């Protein structure tokens, strides 16, 4: 009984306005670290505008850190900046820059270590190896941060938002550019990635490994070295994302490898070398997407099975679909293909003859890449026509039996 009273008293003590606000100015060395020593749980630490050259600031109390007019915390290329090891910390309004670089530890501007309910909002992260690093953390929020760097190569750089072995994260409205991977997920489940923009990263805009039951919607992935890679995951949902201008010989808007039971819907794939590349994927629904002006709209390797491609628009792609074998265990149905030249006699807006999305020349160039130089010449047109009349090298099982006559209004 006395113990219970003490507990109640304790709760009363904590929540009864005993929280104080501590203001930090950039007048002394280690100002933030010193101030943190005076903080108790529930306090607010307000950091005034100024330049703070501090590293490895350990936040071990349940506090709120607020920056006023974006005070700059500069790591002068040594060490990490803020390490959070306590639950329910909020970090907001700071400019964090110049972490160190090390091959032993991943140097991050903000590292969340084994915590819950931490939020990182409205910060500017400039020129760091890793931006926000979530390590075994749960129910955390990363919101409206601008994360910028100018990574030169993959070896000496880190990821914008790096999450490892975490659950229930919400990454929203962040702007990430110039890192190795814009957003990196490894063993992260039940999380949401919403409305982020990831551009000009040297490897992937989003990199996903062993991360199940995640949703990403309304994100833009533009001009990244190799687009977006989703690997070894289940039940991933991707809606309303934009994938634009991911160019290169190993560049895919989305690379799917060993993915199962996922949904890809209402996305826009615009001007990518390859729209969707699939390898060993099963039971994925690809619906209501728009593929515009891609090199290949899709590359579906024959190791994929039971995927459904329905109600998509394929417009002005050089090649619609390419594959590497003759076996095809996936369903294409009810898509609009702008290259379809069949007819619709019963006027039900569905073509009466099937469409074969793999063109002869895409098979030829698969075998002899140099032959690409003759693409769209009169000779290759003739070859394509002949192939249509007498199919011999095009995989005949890959076809859309009910191609639409009119494109769908998707956006």
């Amino acid at each position, binding site marked *: 009984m006395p113990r219970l009273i003490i507990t109640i008293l304790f709760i009363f003590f904590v929540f009864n306005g005993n929280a104080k606000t501590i203001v930090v100015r950039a007048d002394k060395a280690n100002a933030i670290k010193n101030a943190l020593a005076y903080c108790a749980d529930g306090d607010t630490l307000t950091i005034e505008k100024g330049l703070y050259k501090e590293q490895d600031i350990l936040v071990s109390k349940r506090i709120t850190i607020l920056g006023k007019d974006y005070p700059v915390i500069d790591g002068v290329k040594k060490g990490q900046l803020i390490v959070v090891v306590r639950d329910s910390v909020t970090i907001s309004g700071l400019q964090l820059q110049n972490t160190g670089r090390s091959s032993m530890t991943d140097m991050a501007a903000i590292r969340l270590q084994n915590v819950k309910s931490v939020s990182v909002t409205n910060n500017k992260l400039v020129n760091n190896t890793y931006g926000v690093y979530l390590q075994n953390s749960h129910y955390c929020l990363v919101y409206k941060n601008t994360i910028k760097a100018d990574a030169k190569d993959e070896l000496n750089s880190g990821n914008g938002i790096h999450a490892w072995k975490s659950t229930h994260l919400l990454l929203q409205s962040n702007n990430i550019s110039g890192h190795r991977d814009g957003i990196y997920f490894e063993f992260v489940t039940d999380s949401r990635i919403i409305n982020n923009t990831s551009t000009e990263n040297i490897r992937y805009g989003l990199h996903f490994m062993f991360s199940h039951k995640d949703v990403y919607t309304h994100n833009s992935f533009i001009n990244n070295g190799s687009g977006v890679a989703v690997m070894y995951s289940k039940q991933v949902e991707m809606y309303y994302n934009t994938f634009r201008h991911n160019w290169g010989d190993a560049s895919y808007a989305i690379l799917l490898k060993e993915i199962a039971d996922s949904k890809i819907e209402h996305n826009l794939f615009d001007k990518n070398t390859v729209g969707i590349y699939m390898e060993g994927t099963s039971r994925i629904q690809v619906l209501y997407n728009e593929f515009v002006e891609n*090199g*290949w709209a899709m590359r579906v390797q024959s190791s994929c099975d039971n995927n459904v491609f329905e109600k998509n628009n394929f417009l002005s792609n050089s090649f619609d679909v390419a594959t590497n074998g003759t076996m095809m265990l996936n369903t294409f149905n009810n898509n609009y293909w702008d290259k379809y030249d069949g007819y619709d006699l019963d006027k039900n807006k569905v073509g009466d003859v099937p469409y074969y999305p793999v063109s002869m020349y895409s098979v030829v160039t698969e075998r002899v890449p*140099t032959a690409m130089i003759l693409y*769209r010449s009169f000779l290759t047109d003739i070859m394509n026509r002949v192939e249509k009349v007498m199919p011999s090298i095009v995989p005949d099982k890959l076809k859309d039996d009910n191609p639409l006559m009119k494109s769908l209004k998707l956006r």
Partner: protein
Amino acid sequence: MKTIMKYVVADLIRNKVIVVYAIILAVLSFSVLSIDENPAKGLLSLLNVTLLFVPLISILFATIYYFNSIEFIELLLAQPVRRNKVLLAEYAGLTISLSLAYLLGVGLPVMIISPNLAAITLLMSGFLLTLIFTAIALLIFVLFKDKTKGIGAAIAAAMFFTLLFDGLLLIFIYSFNEYPIDKAVLGITAFNPVDLARILMLLQLDVAVLMGYSGALFKKFLGTGTGSVYVVVCMLFWVLLPLLLSVRVFRKKDL
């Protein structure tokens, strides 16, 4: 030279064939572009028209025209004018009319319906092809004395550049597939103006897919502006070389 050019142009317009050529191109472009809601597709059809018919019509019409105006040329040469001036004036007059017909016939509809960079590239390649094939026709004219032989040569040349060359190139690519032939293939295409025009267009429409090939040369060459510049320079050579050659031959030709 200007006066002769003026006469040639006036003669060609009175001839009406050029006007009909322009009208046919215009009707074709309008219909092709408005049939499909996707103008890029229409542009592709127009590319095929440009690559196939512009060389054929330019070279045939030009050859016939040169041979038919042989009396006019002889008459002019009786006057105190220089031979190469007469020849170049004939060429210029013909080229101006043909390319005007092309630019109006295809350019007007294209610019109205889908004005973009790809469209401009298409017009540019059609224009250059007209210049090139009238120049080749001129060369044929100065090389052959007999009109029938000349027209035969023109047909052969057009067929060679539009069809045969690509066939041979494809055979070459297939047989030497195992070797690094990227550079060689790019070099070989320079010998065919039709291919050059097509590549100029590919660089506009299909860069994404061209970037998908691992050949570093392709990527470097085609990914940047260098590719387009190289192609245009090669095509300009294709205008200049036949012209210079024909002027040289014509200077010593026994008329």
